[in-house]
C-alpha cells in the first residue's frame, strides 16, 4: 500500500502514529489488532524510517544479524543478504557503502525481521531513478509471504508501480483511497471553476465526465475527467454561468480543491520541483 501525498501532507506523522512514536491527538489506532506500542513490542512491525544512517563499527552482516536478534520470528540472515545482493558486501563496514548499497542494507534490516507489517517512510528519497527501480525490485524479490508493505512517497509513478492500493493524503486528511489504477485515472483530472448560482451540486456531480463537484457560495468547483465535454454542456445549459476557469491540475491540486483547501493555498505550499512533477503527471 502506498501513502501518497505532497510534503507536509501528514504521511510521516501518520506512520509515526502507526509505529507508536507519536500518539494521535484524537481517536485510536490499532495495528495487527493491538495498540501500536504493543504491536511494536510483539515484533509485528518492521520499520525503515526516513532518517537513519546505519550505525558504525559494524559489518553489513553483523548489523543485519543484530536486527534479526531483536525480533521473535526473524528470517535467516544469509538468505536475506543474498536476496538483496548484499552477500558480497557481508564483511564490509557499514560506513563504507554507496547510497544505493546503504539503502539495500536498510531494506535488509527490515526484511530480516520477518514482521507482518513493514513500514517504509520515503524509502527511495534521494536515490536516482535507476537505484529506485533496483531498490523496489530487490524488495519485491525478498518480500516474504504474508507481509504487508506500507510505504510513503511523493512520487506518483512509484506508488503506481509498486502498490496495489494507494491512499492519497493532503493536509492531514485522506482525500482518495483506491486501487492504483483508479488513482491514476483521477490524476488526469482537470479542475473547472465557475460562478454558477442556483444549480444543485448533486446534478452537476452526476454529469458525464465529472468526478466530483462542490459549491462554495456562488462558486462551483468541479473535478472533471473530461473537461471539454463538461464545459460545453455547462455553457450550453446555464446561460448565467460566468468566470469560467479550467486548470490542468495534478493529482494533489485537484483533491486539494475538492477538500476545500483552495488551489491557491495548495499551490503556494509547493516548491518549484513539485510543480514540475505535477505538470508531468497531469
Amino acid at each position: 500500500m502506498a501513502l501518497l501525498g505532497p510534503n507536509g501532507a501528514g504521511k510521516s506523522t501518520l506512520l509515526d502514529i502507526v509505529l507508536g512514536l507519536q500518539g494521535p491527538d484524537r481517536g485510536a489506532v490499532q495495528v495487527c489488532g493491538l495498540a501500536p506500542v504493543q504491536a511494536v513490542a510483539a515484533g509485528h512491525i518492521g520499520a525503515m524510517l526516513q532518517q537513519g544512517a546505519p550505525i558504525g563499527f559494524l559489518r553489513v552482516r553483523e548489523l543485519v544479524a543484530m536486527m534479526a536478534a531483536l525480533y521473535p520470528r526473524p528470517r535467516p540472515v544469509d538468505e536475506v543478504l543474498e536476496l538483496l545482493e548484499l552477500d558480497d558486501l557481508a564483511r564490509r563496514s557499514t560506513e563504507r557503502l554507496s547510497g544505493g548499497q546503504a539503502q539495500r542494507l536498510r531494506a535488509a534490516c527490515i526484511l530480516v525481521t520477518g514482521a507482518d507489517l513493514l513500514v517504509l517512510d520515503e524509502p527511495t528519497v534521494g536515490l536516482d531513478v535507476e537505484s529506485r527501480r533496483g531498490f523496489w525490485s530487490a524488495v519485491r524479490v525478498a518480500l516474504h509471504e504474508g507481509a504487508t508493505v506500507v510505504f510513503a512517497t511523493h512520487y506518483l509513478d512509484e506508488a503506481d508501480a509498486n502498490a496495489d492500493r494507494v491512499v492519497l493524503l493532503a493536509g492531514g486528511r485522506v482525500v482518495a483511497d483506491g486501487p492504483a489504477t483508479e488513482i491514476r485515472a483521477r490524476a488526469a483530472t482537470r479542475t473547472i471553476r465557475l460562478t454558477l448560482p442556483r444549480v444543485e451540486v448533486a446534478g452537476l456531480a452526476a454529469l458525464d465526465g465529472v468526478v466530483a463537484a462542490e459549491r462554495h457560495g456562488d462558486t462551483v468547483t468541479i473535478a472533471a475527467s473530461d473537461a471539454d465535454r463538461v464545459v460545453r454542456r455547462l455553457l450550453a445549459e446555464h446561460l448565467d454561468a460566468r468566470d469560467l476557469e479550467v486548470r490542468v491540475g495534478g493529482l494533489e491540486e485537484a483533491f486539494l480543491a475538492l477538500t476545500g483547501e483552495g488551489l491557491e493555498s495548495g499551490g503556494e505550499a509547493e516548491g518549484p520541483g513539485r510543480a514540475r512533477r505535477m505538470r508531468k503527471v497531469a
Partner: protein
Amino acid sequence: MNGTYLRFELLRTVRNRRLFVFSLGMPLLLYGLIALPNRHETLGGIPFATYYMVGMMSWGATTAVLAGGGRIAVERTLGWSRQLRTTPLRPSVYLASKVAAGYVMALASMVVLAGVGVASGVELSAGAWTRMVGLTLVGLVPFATLGIAFGHVLHLDSLGPVLGGTTAVFAILGGVWGPVADSGWLHQVGLALPSYWLVQSGRVAVAGQLWPARGWLVVGAWTAALAVLASAAYRRDTKRA
C-alpha cells in the same frame, strides 16, 4: 536481556578506538609522567604510585562510563534511537547495554593501569585489590547514570566539551591528581562528591577498610538524584508528542 544485541554493542564499543584515547591513553600518559618519577614518595597518606594509580583509574573509568551513556547522543543524531524504538527491544535493555559498554571500557583501562602500577612498584594485598576495585565499580554508578542523562539531553556538538569538563571538575575536586585540601571548605566540597570517594577507595583499601558511612551516603545520594535526572531526560527525549 538480549544476548546477541549486547554482544554486538560491546563489539562496537571495543572497535571504536577513539573512545579509549581519553579513558585509557590520557590516564596512562599522566601516570607515566607524574607517578613514575615520584614513585618513592607518599601522597595522601599512602605510597605515591598507589594513590596515583587509583586516581588515574577513577579518572579513566569515570570518562569511560560517561562516554558509554554519551553514545546515546550519537545514536540519537543518526536516527538509530528512533529506529530501535520501532523494534521489540526494551528501552531498559538499550540503556543497560550502554552502561555495560561503559563498564567494559572502564574495566579495560583499570586492568591496563593496574598492570602498569604493579610493574612500577604498587604493592597491594589481594584483599586490598578486591576492595579497591569493588568500591571503584560501585563509585562509578552515579557517573554511568549521569552519562545516560547527558546522552538524552546533549547535542553532538556539545558532547565532547561537556563530558570532558564534567570529568575534569569532578576529578580535580575529588583529588584525582592529589588531595586538593585537607581541611576547609574545599575539603568539605570534596567530601560531598562521588569522585572523592572513588579516589579514596585506594586509601581505605590499603587500610583494610571499606568507605565510611559518609562515603556510601554520598555515592547513594548522587546515584538517586542523577537517576531522577536521567529518567526525566529519557522521558523528555522519547515523549510521544
